[in-house]
């Protein structure tokens, strides 16, 4: 009887060890697969929009890419407003953050949330809560790149 309960305790212990060892890994794998699938789908949608502008509207490569960004940002703003993008985000994690739609979401979500603080310091300022850092580092580093390119050309 005693050995049996001892076995049982051992079993539970082993099982707990197994759970601890395996659970985070499978969460990791699940999250990565979801991010891959949703992020991939958003980019595939982007490719469809790009092709539409490149072939049907005869935009150049750069213009088609810009038009695609604008369309995706519009879609993301709409879905964020309807509360759908947050649900996609819960499922997809980085799959909904990394694409340009995630950038748009980071603009819209705080602006909506702080609407009650007024149109200037509420919406106007909070639009840039997350987009601000992105623009600061993106634009800042692009100026550095431009300056380096300039001095390399001069020398």
């Amino acid at each position, binding site marked *: 009887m005693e050995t049996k309960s001892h076995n049982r305790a051992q079993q539970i212990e082993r099982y707990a060890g197994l759970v601890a060892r395996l659970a985070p890994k499978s969460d*990791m794998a699940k*999250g*990565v697969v*979801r*991010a*891959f699938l949703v*992020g*991939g789908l958003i*980019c*595939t949608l*982007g*490719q469809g*929009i*790009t092709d539409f502008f490149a072939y049907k509207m005869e935009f150049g490569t750069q213009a088609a*890419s*810009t038009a*695609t*960004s*604008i369309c*995706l940002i*519009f879609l993301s*703003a*709409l879905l*964020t*407003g*309807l*509360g759908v993008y947050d649900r996609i985000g819960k499922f997809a*994690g*980085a799959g909904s*953050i*990394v*694409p*340009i739609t*995630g*950038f*748009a979401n*980071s*603009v*819209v979500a705080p*602006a*909506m949330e702080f*609407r009650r603080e007024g149109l200037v310091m509420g*919406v*106007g300022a909070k*639009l840039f809560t*997350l*987009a601000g850092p992105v*623009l600061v*580092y*993106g*634009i800042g*580093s*692009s*100026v550095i*790149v*431009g*300056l*380096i*390119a*300039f001095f390399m050309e001069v020398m």
Partner: protein
Amino acid sequence: MILMYVKAFIVGGILCAIGQVLLLKTALTSSRILVGYVTVGVILGALGLYEPLADFAGAGATVPLTGFGYALSQGAMEAVKSQGILGAFTGGVTSAAGGIAAAVFFGYLAALIFKPRMKS
């Protein structure tokens, strides 16, 4: 044509999967990931490493935020060729202007139209 969609799916998916690994394995918040992706895009674009990826994967490389950074650095470098040092300041924002203006405009509209909902 179909192949382009497959490539966009796979490359875009991988870039997001890397983001997910960073999210889970490091203490990086989503805003830091956004900033990191843009900056990495600027650097890879400047080194000429992102252009082959954009040619290969199309929207798979331009839709993720690294593509936003790539557009910024590409714009700055091209503008320097035509306008000299002034281009370093105007080129980046010019090429990313569509996205920035769209985010501000649609973001503002959405905040006016939609009511924030309770978090469930």
